[in-house]
């Protein structure tokens, strides 16, 4: 038996059971991306017209590889959270909504993982 009152259980996390988690994660990833995106755009500008040797040399640098992995993690997480809201807003049938969310989450995970593996391959592969 719980000694907590019904109101205490209702407060805080709400019907979605995660409270402000989604909102907060979107903001945290946004702030991280502000810095990472500036670094990424500047890096790409330095690599404008670069050949393969130059570009792979850049990504072989462990600092660059690490920042690229951070960018990938925050980027695809932020993307997943954003697309989730878009789907929840515009897709109305419950079954269709769940299928869309699953496909979208899977796609973000797959593309993000492919990016991360490519980075690791360049940084550590022979």
């Amino acid at each position: 038996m719980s000694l907590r009152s019904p109101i205490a259980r209702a407060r805080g996390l709400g019907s979605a059971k995660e409270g402000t988690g989604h909102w907060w994660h979107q903001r945290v990833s946004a702030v991280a991306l502000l810095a990472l995106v500036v670094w990424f755009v500047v890096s790409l500008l330095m690599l404008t017209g670069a050949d393969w040797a130059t570009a792979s040399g850049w990504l072989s640098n462990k600092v660059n590889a690490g920042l690229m992995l951070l960018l990938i993690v925050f980027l695809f997480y932020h993307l997943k959270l954003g697309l989730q809201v878009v789907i929840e807003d515009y897709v109305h049938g419950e079954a269709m909504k769940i299928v869309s969310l699953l496909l979208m989450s899977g796609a973000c995970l797959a593309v993000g993982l492919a990016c991360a593996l490519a980075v690791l391959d360049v940084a550590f592969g022979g």
Partner: protein
Amino acid sequence: MAKVERPLSPHLGVYRFQITMTMSILHRITGVGLGLGTLLMAWWLIALAMGPGPFDLVQDVVSGWFGRLVLLGFTASLVFHFFNGIRHLAWDVGLGFALPTMRASGWTVAALTVIVTALIWIAGYSMRGI
């Protein structure tokens, strides 16, 4: 149970143009667009891992006129989402809610998008020239 066709509100079509609603929908559109753009990033990274042949193919496609057009849209979307995102974060900490401020910050984001996108491309072309 019969579904009653109730009027939906707000009727977006009856509003005149407002900078605030334009920025709002553009934030979402550029977000989805950038999401599709990650496929280009993935292609670039995977080609980089595969070797000079696949990498040169990406560089050739991206430096063609269509590739440049896509890259320009990608740059503008990223710059817009970046600055409008800062606008959203400011609201999240309670700043800039007065309507005149909101309109001014909206136009500021629009101007910054054009200026910074142009600067990035000028920098890109001058890097190529060197």
